[in-house]
């Protein structure tokens, strides 16, 4: 069933008003810039200090790419968690159930709450990586990284809203979802085919794509992410139906 554009926009407007009132909107605007500046200037500065005091050269240099991936993933994570916390509150207050029986529907509700913020964070993470990344990326790679990290953000948000029965459990799940990022360092630190043991983590494929620059890894990552999104979306729909 198609969701009307007007219903979607109204619902998104409602979401924006809520995060504006929570002062979260200001944080979502400032935090990526602050983080970008810390990554761009702080890490090379820390590298210099380490060289000065401990004589260790290039301690961080091999991991600049990893820092870039963290920077790229930070914005989607922040935006999607802010959205997930709004949904958690709405589930607890019974608003989600009501909204899903309006012309907005369950799909429209999710799109307006998680899809729109993900689209915005996709654009923000591209700009952020173009300005603040430590490595030299061509634009297509930046777009690929932003796409994968935004799918990862959507998965994290869906995990929080579909696996928890209330706000408290939601916070516990959101803490656990941090482990989803463990796939990022794996290709940097684990050699050989044993690294593929974490194939189910989209973050692993994101790191593989960034290192190898092979389209195949990007596509595999997108596929793994879509499987996660499909399963979690189903679970969320069942939960709303209850």
């Amino acid at each position, binding site marked *: 069933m198609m969701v009307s554009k007007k219903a979607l926009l109204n619902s998104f407007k409602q979401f924006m008003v*809520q*995060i504006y009132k*929570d*002062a*979260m909107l200001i*944080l979502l605007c400032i935090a990526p810039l602050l983080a970008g500046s810390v990554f761009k200037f702080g890490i090379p500065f820390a590298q210099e200090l380490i060289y000065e005091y401990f004589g260790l050269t290039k301690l961080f240099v091999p991991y600049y790419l990893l820092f870039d991936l963290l920077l790229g993933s930070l914005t989607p994570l922040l935006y999607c968690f*802010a959205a997930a*916390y*709004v949904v*958690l*509150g709405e589930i*607890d*207050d019974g608003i989600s159930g009501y909204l899903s029986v309006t012309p907005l529907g369950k799909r429209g509700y999710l799109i307006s709450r998680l899809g729109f913020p993900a689209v915005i964070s996709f654009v923000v993470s591209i700009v952020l990586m173009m300005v603040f990344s430590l490595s030299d990326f061509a634009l297509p790679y930046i777009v690929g990284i932003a796409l994968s990290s935004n799918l990862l953000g959507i998965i994290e948000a869906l995990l929080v809203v579909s696996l928890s029965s*209330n*706000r*408290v*459990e*939601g*916070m*516990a*799940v959101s*803490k*656990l979802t941090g*482990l989803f990022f463990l796939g990022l360092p794996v290709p940097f630190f684990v050699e050989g085919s044993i690294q593929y043991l974490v194939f189910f983590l989209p973050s692993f494929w994101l790191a593989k794509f960034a290192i190898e620059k092979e389209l195949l890894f990007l596509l595999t990552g997108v596929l793994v992410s879509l499987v996660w999104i499909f399963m979690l979306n189903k679970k969320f729909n069942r939960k709303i139906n209850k």
Partner: protein
Amino acid sequence: MRTRLRSLIIGDIQFQFKYGFYFVYTVFTFFYICLLFAFPATIREKAAILMIYSDPAAMGLFFMGSIVLFEKSQRVLNSIAVSPVKVSEYILSKVVSLGLIGTVVGVLIAFAAGNRNIILVIIATFMGSVIFSLFGLMIASKIQTLNQFMVATIPFEILCLVPSIFYLFGYQKPFMLLHPGIIVIRMMEGKNIENIAFELLMLGIWILMIYMVTYRIVKKMFQSVGGVKL
């Protein structure tokens, strides 16, 4: 009164168990211990202290918003407000129950890192946890949504964590010894044991001051549950 407080604490522990806190921290304890062994042995103990101070000890600042908001939405606070439970008992129950998990996790991480000042780690983690939980409760009593809570905790996190991290990694000035987080970290390191009584006194004064502010704010929340000022 003692039975009431004990029942409240047991109730809070059951609540935290039911909603996955114990499961999450079992996973994270295992994860942190594995991560510790990825660090060179020379900085392992410092890394463990940073982990304990920033996570299990600080869990009150992370979870309190959701706990209080959930209690508001389930009308638990309305029931507590008209029951014989005192504001002080409500605060103590939250602080002790969260402090308990934090301390157990802290001790396990410290032990795995080779820290043998276990008694000091227990005292420091628990007192650190009390401070973070009181801050969490203070903020949670004033907010209406989770996002408001997350935004409001940022200044507290910066104030509590940043000076302590600087101190732990070498930026040490005498005036910093007044900072409660730094006292907690020094106790975990087993430094300055001869002045332990003074450090405990300092922490006690900090906790008392933060408790008094929290008490006033929580009392106000209890008087205005349901949107009406009693």
